[in-house]
């Protein structure tokens, strides 16, 4: 007897299943579940926009309300991906405007978006609510004007760290007076001044505004005006944080902050004048998130602020915080989950800043909930890493950058293999790891053996031979993204682990030792992979098989080779492999 629930009941049950992983599992159960699930899936995440085509997505999932796409590889953030590589949002937006009239949310990361696309978004979706453009480029303030003018129910406009062609600040005035739905506005990446009166009016008529991140051009004197209009703010990004020494500015600012009873997160702080720092003193005890990574203030001032924030969960700061500041963090911020320490000037040998491995060790000791670390420093030792690993086995994300490439343990002059080995051994839930310093194949042996939950691994200037890469590819069962630069990894490891590549989202290798011939072989062997070779120097057609490729990007896909590549990128066409000598 076949017992089956009516569709509506199943649909209702499925509505409680939100994780993509679980939804995918549901759709595998049987044909009818697949059908029901695809009609009620509302949220799509595509981690690599070239892994699937827009029409495949719209064909399978006809009733989507929210789409998130990612384009360029992560290393594009560091100028390793050349101009014009791809990640064009246009075909996606065109297809979605045709197929999803009820789309509400679009989130794009590292994609190229044009003003035309923004205009299309603003006119195609009647109930459009959320637009997040993270590290995107290709559009101007004209496109933003279209969004402001046409999206009647816009709730969130978040430009994150996008590169916007700043034509004028008047785009903000395009928000109609009837627009009162704004909940989150992030314009921190914009260079030029927006019309302040338009901003003030917009803030004033948005009672649900919770997140406001201003750009540097908004002067400190005007900040209190905005705060008085929006005392319900939960997260604030200030503009420039200096104003000459003016006591009236200080007092109105502290009064305004006093009125913000819900404020939990602060960021911005460009050009900080330390004398204004404690204007937000009243907020400190409530703060859960503090981003001082643009604030070039020195240690005693930072320490003063941090010690007032016992509820801090996320702290982003420059290395001016120094070990002493981090000791204060370890003492005061017992709820800390995430720490990021950025370098104030990594390009000079002696930075005159005493931030060492000790700071991180202190925080690992003092902050029991610490899960996520991004740390730039100039020296590291195996003993420090082992201590950190033992202190904090609950680490999920550990990204360490010792600034000098291939820098050894500064105490013993040995490689940092054992230290990172301890990290992967003790932190069993580690999902993301970035390596640096002097590293041999041994560290990869440890990683392959212990880092079973690892999903993303970044490697630079490390390893001795293909064995290193082989350990990673064969051992890390959960690996999804692997990015490698300047390592002596060649063909052998890749060719011995071809199947692994299909279980991963992508593999990036630049300045390594993979040969053109190996790429051709891979492409022939694995039709579900796109093997893209990037060579900005010579002609790809005249490559000998033994030549090493400059940059290599391999990703799995059901969409076949892409057609929007610039001349210096080639997807190895498997049909042609046998005819090319």
């Amino acid at each position, binding site marked *: 007897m076949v017992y089956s629930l009516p569709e509506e009941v199943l649909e209702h049950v499925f509505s409680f299943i939100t994780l993509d992983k679980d939804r995918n599992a549901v759709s595998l159960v049987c044909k009818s579940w697949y059908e029901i699930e695809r009609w009620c899936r509302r949220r799509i995440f595509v981690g690599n926009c070239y892994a699937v085509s827009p029409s495949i*997505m719209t064909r399978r999932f006809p009733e989507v309300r929210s789409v998130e796409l990612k384009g360029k590889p992560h290393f594009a953030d560091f100028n390793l991906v050349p101009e014009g590589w791809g990640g064009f949002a246009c075909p996606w937006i065109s297809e979605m405007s045709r197929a999803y009239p009820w789309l509400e949310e679009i989130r794009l990361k590292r994609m190229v978006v044009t003003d035309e696309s923004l205009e299309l978004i603003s006119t195609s979706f009647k109930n459009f609510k959320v637009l997040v453009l993270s590290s995107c480029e290709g559009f101007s303030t004209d496109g933003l004007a279209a969004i402001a003018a046409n999206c009647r129910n816009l709730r969130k406009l978040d430009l994150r760290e996008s590169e916007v062609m700043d034509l004028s600040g008047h785009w903000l005035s395009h928000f109609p007076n009837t627009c009162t739905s704004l909940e989150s506005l992030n314009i921190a990446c914009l260079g030029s001044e927006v019309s302040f009166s338009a901003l003030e009016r917009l803030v004033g008529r948005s009672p649900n505004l919770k997140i406001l991140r201003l750009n540097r051009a908004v002067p400190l004197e005007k900040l209190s005006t905005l705060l008085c209009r929006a005392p319900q703010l939960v997260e604030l990004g200030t503009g420039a944080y200096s104003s000459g020494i003016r006591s009236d500015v200080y007092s109105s600012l502290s009064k305004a902050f006093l009125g913000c009873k819900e404020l939990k997160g602060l960021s911005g702080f460009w050009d900080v004048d330390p004398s204004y720092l404690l204007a937000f003193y009243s907020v400190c005890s409530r703060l859960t998130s503090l981003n001082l990574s643009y604030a070039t203030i020195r240690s005693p001032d930072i320490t003063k602020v941090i010690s007032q924030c016992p509820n801090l969960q996320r702290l982003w700061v420059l290395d001016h915080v120094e070990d002493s500041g981090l000791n204060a963090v370890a003492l005061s911020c017992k709820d800390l989950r995430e720490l990021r320490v950025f370098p104030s*000037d990594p390009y000079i040998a002696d930075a005159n800043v005493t931030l060492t491995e000790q700071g991180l060790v202190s925080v690992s000791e003092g902050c029991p909930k610490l899960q996520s670390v991004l740390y730039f420093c100039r020296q590291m030792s195996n003993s420090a890493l082992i201590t950190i690993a033992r202190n904090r086995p609950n680490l999920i994300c550990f990204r360490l950058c010792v600034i000098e490439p291939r820098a050894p343990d500064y105490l013993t002059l040995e490689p940092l293999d054992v230290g990172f080995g301890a990290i992967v051994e003790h932190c069993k839930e580690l999902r993301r790891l*970035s390596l640096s310093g002097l590293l041999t194949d041994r560290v990869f042996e440890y990683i392959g053996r212990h880092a079973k939950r690892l999903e993303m691994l970044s490697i630079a200037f490390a390893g001795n031979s293909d064995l290193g890469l082989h350990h990673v590819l064969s051992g890390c069962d959960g690996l999804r993204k692997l990015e490698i630069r300047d390592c002596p990894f060649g063909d052998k490891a890749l060719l011995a682990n071809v199947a692994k590549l299909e279980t991963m989202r992508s593999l990036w290798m630049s300045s390594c030792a993979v040969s053109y011939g190996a790429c051709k072989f891979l492409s022939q062997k694995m039709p579900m992979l796109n093997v893209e070779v990037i060579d900005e120097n010579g002609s790809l057609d005249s490559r000998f098989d033994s030549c090493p490729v400059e940059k290599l990007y391999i990703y799995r896909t059901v969409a076949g080779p892409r057609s929007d590549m610039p001349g210096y990128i080639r997807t190895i066409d498997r049909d042609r492999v046998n005819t090319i000598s």
Partner: protein
Amino acid sequence: MDGTLGLLGGIHGGADGGGGGDGGGVPSCGSILTNSKEDDTMNDQDMLAEVSSSYPVDDDLELGLGLRIGGGGSNAIQEGSRILRPNSCSSSSSSSSVNITNSSIAGFKKSAIDSVSPPNAASVVGWPPIRRAHRMPILANRIKSERKEYSSRAKSYLSVKVNMDGTLIGRKVDLNAHNSYETLARTLENMFYGRQTIGRSRLLSGTSEFVLTYEDKDGDCMLVGDVPWQMFVSSVKRLRILRSPKSRNCI
């Protein structure tokens, strides 16, 4: 089932190349499917054997089946192992600052393999890995310190006016070009008398009919030579060469 579930399958495709896992390798429109490992029985041994046996040993494909570190095989691998062996790493003492050569920058077009000296942080593209937005404080710092340097350099040229009693036209002398009273006095004598004195300057020794004085920060007229040179330089505003001690106060 296969048609519509083609996306979820993945049984076709690279199966003979080691299709690891049923339905595990194919991206769906959602996120990545969990990799079912039941069929992933091929272990590394088989992988290597499989690769070498189906490997077209072609004259044209120099993929180097016989890849040996330091042996024959492709040149790239050979150089890679040569440069990056542990002893070569330690000998280059990468922790200290290394002289950056243009060749090492060009070498990074291909790989670290080609450069002889290990990369220094300042010469490598995209290193250290900092996003564009976080490079701003670095720039701001640079501008600040450059401004400081510029203004301190500007102070290294310190010229003061010199007037002599009875002479209408004054002169200017750069105090930073001197590091003692003696050289200053000689210069002044040269300027105003047009001749050199042998031995100690007469201006300083008090044997001349003139005496060398200066106006300090407070505006007072002081005799040159009483305080250490550096202190003098930091407080002098102008110099005056006056007639004998019996002369009147400077105005």
